[in-house]
């Protein structure tokens, strides 16, 4: 979207945006924001294995996974060593605002024998764009515990939605287990420790265009 178009949108929408704030002009949130749709696919979340919930203010959502786990060990096929789930979130936002992802909390369970390594990674991009933000957490065996990975996006890896166009946010999460340094040992990384669910909580962050 061109700068010209973005400026035009700003000119038109900013007075309205300020007006709609009323007494809360300091709140850095546009007058309305809504998550209007979530779709997903991936080796870790085939159709029918995900539950999702959008918060009452439509600014956060939760995903619950039934069978999202990576495994490594003797005789385990390569495709088991890495699982992913990409989530596409459609937003309705006012003209003149842009948004980015704020935090991602990934919770799960990891069990690794000595010499086995596991990784959780989240990649972010806006529909149609090449720029990708990425955060990862690496765990070394031996270990056997629940984990929580909180990705707090910094200024360096923040990816903002384009101004003046509505583009959905893509969040590609993945877990990998690597036993190449200890081929006889096993490991698993799942996000399904006790209740059989992998849980992600997302928050969104906003800024004005221009």
């Amino acid at each position, binding site marked *: 979207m061109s700068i010209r178009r973005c400026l035009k949108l700003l000119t038109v929408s900013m007075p309205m945006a300020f007006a709609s704030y009323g007494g809360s002009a300091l709140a850095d949130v546009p007058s309305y924001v809504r998550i209007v749709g979530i779709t997903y696919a991936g*080796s870790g979340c085939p159709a029918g294995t995900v539950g999702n919930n959008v918060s009452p203010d439509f600014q956060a959502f939760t995903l619950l996974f039934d069978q999202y786990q990576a495994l490594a060990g003797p005789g385990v*096929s*390569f495709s088991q060593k890495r699982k*992913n789930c*990409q989530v596409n979130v459609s937003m309705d936002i006012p003209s003149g605002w842009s948004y980015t992802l704020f935090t991602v909390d990934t919770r799960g369970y990891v069990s690794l024998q000595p010499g086995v390594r596991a990784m959780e990674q989240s*990649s972010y991009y806006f*529909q149609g764009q090449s720029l990708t933000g990425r955060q990862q957490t690496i765990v070394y065996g031996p270990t056997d515990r629940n984990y929580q990975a909180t990705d707090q996006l910094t200024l360096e890896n923040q990816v903002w939605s384009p101004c003046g166009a509505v583009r959905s946010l893509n969040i590609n999460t993945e877990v990998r287990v690597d036993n190449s340094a200890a081929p006889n040992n096993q490991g698993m990384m799942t996000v399904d420790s006790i209740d059989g669910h992998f849980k992600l909580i997302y928050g969104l962050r906003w800024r004005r265009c221009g």
Partner: protein
Amino acid sequence: MLVFRWICAAVLSVSLLGPRLMADAATAHPSGIEGIDYRGTGCPEGSVAANLAPDAQTMTLIFSAFAVDTSTRSGRPMRKVCVINIAMGTEPGWQFTLFGVNVRGYANIQSGAVGVQQVLHSFGQGSGQAIGRQQLIGPFDNNFSSYSELPLAAAEWSPCDSGRHRRFHLRTSITVRPRLGFRDSDGEQDDGGKGPNFPYGYMTIDSIDGGMVQQYQVGWRRCTGR
């Protein structure tokens, strides 16, 4: 035959988003994606999630089963393909110029094996012409991505003087195989997949994004002489 009708999705999105966006979509862009369907070993029915932007300029496809794993077949070569058929529509007096394609995925390739990801396009029947190719030589264990552009204005496909609906195809494939000239443990050259224990590889495409290239407003242009 697997068919996903974007038009319905677009109408649904627009109705959720209200009349403001509908007006935007109608006035801001003289052309856009009208419909899409896909088929192939990499995108069987029920394994793809799709999203089209409300202004119909950009789409995202996410895959659950677009993966090859040669560790389950003693390292013998394996390939998967997904052909995406994209229907475009434009206002009279405009033509398409440039379509961009982002492919993202992951590969875990052992030394001695290679993974190849390729994007071809065609305007009709036939295998088409390559617009992007990426070769990952093992050892490799990481995400990969590629961006390629399809110039539409240069093609007969997007003429100024005929109908407003056009269709083109994107054929995306992934292949994992032993490297040509690979020598196995006894030093014997074997590049045809005949031996029992080739190096393994796993390769997957997670998502494909495609749409009008917008940086310089060249996704479409007004026809001259009108």
